[in-house]
């Protein structure tokens, strides 16, 4: 009974946190892009635009959802549902922390502990194409159709290098369970360099990690591979006709996919919740120091006269004290074994999300044929070579 109750609570929490993260990923993206591009970004709704996601949500909820008369209504409505459902489901297999005791039950932050976690993820990401393909086709719009065709071709092509890049670290750890994969990356070379799969001992998977990231950009339709929704060519690609929450579903699916794929990269290559350097050298103190520094910075800026604007006068001290109060929580011995790994996991995944945004602010877009050529003539052979070398070395060494 306890187990079921706990799972239900965890489900609710995961859904809540993931959806909030998706919404704020949009905010973070807009802010980071804006600062790359010499502008302040969202600033009107709430302090520093912090309530912007909420405003967007209200706007999208209250808009009329239009189904074009020439669209196929069943598939037209099915597509966004499919896209968002599959994108949100993928998060269930991600383990965020090691197992711990809670009310006499062994559990972890993360919904399931599936022993075929990786296969499940690959299956879901393959199915994700359907949402886009069906949406583009059912809209009965030429731009949408082309967007969905591009997307299908792209996602199918990049699935191969993605899968190959995933298989290589699997050869090293010899399991499909994501939690075990992370646990096997424990420890440090020479007591300093973490034994993550990127730095794994027989064959470091740095190349595999790069291939995985590139393929992940294509899988999530991000710049420089954002052809399915290439604004300047296809207006908005597969979701040209969608409005209201149907559009929001596609949008949410995109960001949920980004978050998930960053989590997967963290698990597979970056050692999940393991810290960057050993705890003996004080890696446990990192969250405390970071939060305290952030809090102090906010308080310092709140004291500056130039910052005495309408919102900042109230929000800077409040957030500053909040962060300062949060810092010592990471020192509480009971919570430490959960919170510190969780922090490291979130930090790594968050950094990868930042890289996604950073790339978007930097690179132009590929052309369709170049994209396919890149996948088949460069990325695929490279991932294959990486896999073969890894396999050979593991077989010979093991």
């Amino acid at each position, binding site marked *: 009974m306890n187990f079921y109750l706990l799972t239900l609570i965890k489900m609710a929490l995961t859904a809540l946190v993931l959806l909030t993260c998706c919404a704020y990923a949009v905010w973070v993206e807009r802010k980071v892009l804006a600062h790359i591009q010499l502008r302040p970004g969202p600033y009107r709704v709430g302090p520093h635009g912090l309530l912007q996601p909420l405003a967007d949500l209200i706007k999208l909820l209250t808009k009329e959802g239009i189904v074009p008369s020439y669209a196929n209504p069943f598939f037209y409505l099915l597509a966004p549902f499919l896209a968002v459902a599959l994108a949100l489901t993928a998060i269930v297999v991600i383990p965020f922390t090691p197992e711990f005791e809670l009310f006499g039950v062994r559990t972890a932050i993360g919904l399931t502990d599936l022993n075929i976690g990786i296969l499940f993820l690959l299956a879901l990401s393959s199915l994700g194409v359907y949402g886009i393909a069906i949406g583009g086709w059912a809209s009965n719009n*030429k731009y949408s159709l082309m967007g969905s065709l591009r997307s299908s071709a792209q996602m199918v092509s990049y699935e191969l290098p993605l899968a190959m890049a995933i298989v290589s670290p699997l050869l090293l750890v010899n399991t499909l369970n994501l939690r075990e994969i992370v646990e096997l990356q424990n420890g440090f070379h020479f007591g300093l360099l973490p034994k993550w799969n990127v730095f794994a001992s027989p064959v470091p998977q740095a190349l595999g990690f790069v291939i995985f990231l590139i393929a992940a950009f294509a899988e999530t339709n991000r710049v420089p591979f954002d052809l399915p929704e*290439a604004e300047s*060519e*296809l207006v908005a690609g597969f979701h040209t006709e969608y409005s209201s929450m149907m559009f929001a579903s596609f949008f949410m699916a995109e960001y949920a996919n980004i978050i998930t794929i960053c989590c997967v990269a963290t698990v597979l290559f970056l050692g999940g919740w393991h810290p960057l350097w050993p705890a003996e050298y004080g890696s446990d103190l990192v969250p405390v120091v970071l939060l305290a520094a952030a809090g102090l910075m906010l308080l310092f800026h709140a004291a500056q006269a130039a910052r005495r604007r309408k919102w900042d006068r109230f929000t800077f001290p409040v957030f500053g004290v909040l962060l300062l109060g949060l810092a010592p929580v990471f020192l509480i011995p009971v919570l430490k074994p959960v919170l510190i790994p969780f922090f490291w996991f979130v930090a790594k995944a968050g950094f990868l999300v930042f890289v996604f945004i950073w790339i978007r*602010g*930097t690179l132009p*877009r590929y*052309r*369709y044929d170049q994209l396919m050529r890149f996948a088949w003539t460069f990325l695929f052979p490279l991932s294959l070579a990486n896999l073969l070398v890894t396999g050979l070395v593991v077989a010979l060494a093991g």
Partner: protein
Amino acid sequence: MNPTDTALDSRLQEIAPEAEGAPRRMVLNMGPQHPSTHGVLRVILELDGEIVTKARPDIGFLHTGIEKQAEALGWQQVVTITDRMDYLANLSNNLAYALSVEKLLGVEIPPKAQWMRVLLAELSRINSHVVWLGTHALDLGAMTVFFYCFREREDLLRIFEMFSGQRMMTSYIRIGGLALEPPRGWERAVRNFIRGLPEKVNEYEALLKENPIFLRRTQGVAVVPLERLLDLGVTGPMIRAAGLGWDIRKAEPYSSYEKFDFRVPVEQESDVYARFLVRLEEIRQSARIVEQALDGMPEGPWKADAPHVVLPDREKMKTQMEALIYHFKIVTEGMRVPAGEAYVPVESPRGEIGFYVVSDGGAQPWRVFMRTPSFGNLQSLPEMFEGRLIADTIAALGSMDFVLGDVDR
């Protein structure tokens, strides 16, 4: 389809004849509302998958009737509508019109006004090229370059505002000189901008020039041979990117361009990348011209000594009877231009712009024909599109650098 739209019908028939047994192709109506047609251009594309097999531009969505309107305005008033043809190169348009009318009038423009005109025309060239670069990069997916370019544009618009009180529709170059006396402190504003510019251009270069994705998107794309471009009446950076170093500033210098030292960049490839290189270098050369104009700006009056054309000073008007009469005549009936016709071409950022003005001796032009570069440049569209991918059409459109107001005038 709307049955009354017969023009569209015939166009579609032309592009996609519904013949028996013919391969079925998709007809895509790109524009007039499309993110990268830069205004209201409409292109009807026939597609075989992603490959464009036929392309027909359809213009006229921004028809303003400016040519006809010019016949209903006074000579000096026409300057204001030349601004509205091309919102990125207003001062070049002003200059071209003023030069043509001044040729008819036979007015001598004092050196200071001539140098100011060169300086302003070159600033507007920088303005136009910077906006072109930003939007072109945005079309290719490089979003950040757009904002960097608009940072420079903002500085330029502030300078224009300083001169004329207007950010875009400046109408600063008038028949007989300039509209107003150059404002106090303009040298410093322009010099600050020009000093910082080369570094900014290096920044754009660093972002794009050797970026492998940008190279792949632009090199060898939308190549049209030089002969074809010349047949179609294409001018400006597009023919210079095809290997012909034709620049009216060098070929038929006007407004004392012969006194300035600058290079006309020429590339041979005639592709999108060559056009990018040419325009980027033109920004640098324009900056050089502006610097020379700043250093060697002659002293003297900023408008011609032609009382029948230029309004007299306030001071003179109040004190001298003759000036008062001229003032009264110019204001009430407008200045008169001797009968005849004139055409003085000018190198605008987009190519050759010229106003063929015909006067019957009255206070209004009898006819003003506008030879606009955008119209000529747009003629090369089908050549560039056909046989290429959709993504290339976007790159090609950007490389043409047309302004729709300039096409439909």
